[in-house]
């Protein structure tokens, strides 16, 4: 059974479009995260939710908006996509907030043309 799943796996879209990435975890964890990994493999946290409450909101353009409908789901909506948004986006979850072992999804490869 997949612990942390993301859809879609690949996303190719034009500049200016709006897109969403979905994430679900079946581990019963309280905390979920979105990370962005750039072409140099640098992985940076974007957002974190604990029990549906936003607890980390890094310096991310407000075109990015996370939504957590329940503890098991954390979606990421991106408005007005730009070329620089091209990256791999990873969802992760952990049992507690932040410093515990995190379980990552397979990633969503976003390419903005």
């Amino acid at each position, binding site marked *: 059974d997949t612990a942390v799943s993301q859809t879609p796996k690949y996303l190719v879209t034009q500049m200016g479009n709006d897109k969403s990435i979905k994430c679900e975890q079946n581990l019963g964890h309280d905390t979920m995260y979105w990370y962005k990994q750039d072409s140099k493999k640098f*992985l940076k946290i974007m957002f974190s939710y604990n029990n549906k409450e936003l607890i980390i909101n890094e310096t991310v353009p407000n075109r990015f908006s996370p939504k957590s409908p329940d503890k098991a789901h954390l979606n990421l909506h991106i408005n007005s996509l730009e070329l620089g948004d091209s990256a791999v986006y990873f969802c*992760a979850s952990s049992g507690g907030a*932040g*410093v515990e*072992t*995190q*379980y*990552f999804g397979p*990633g969503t490869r976003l390419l903005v043309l």
Partner: protein
Amino acid sequence: SQQGEEDPQALSIQEGENATMNCSYKTSINNLQWYRQNSGRGLVHLILIRSNEREKHSGRLRVTLDTSKKSSSLLITASRAADTASYFCATDPRAQKLVFGQGTRLTINP
């Protein structure tokens, strides 16, 4: 600059040899974690070492932590082709957030 920085950036060794990767960080931490990322996949947790621990083992993995030098090392013994991956250290410079380095890309040659 990043909280955690891995060294070397890339490492290529022969199968059966040992691989050592290092991680340096800047501020005090509660724990340090190592993760592996295979090409095109998500990160997988390998091992967590707490700030009051100096060494930890898990199978062929050995992690050391020197808080006085703010550094950690990951040793993979008797490497296998399947160990080819990128390895990241992650620290918790403040509560609720892990900070990852840019990783060491390890290649095991048959």
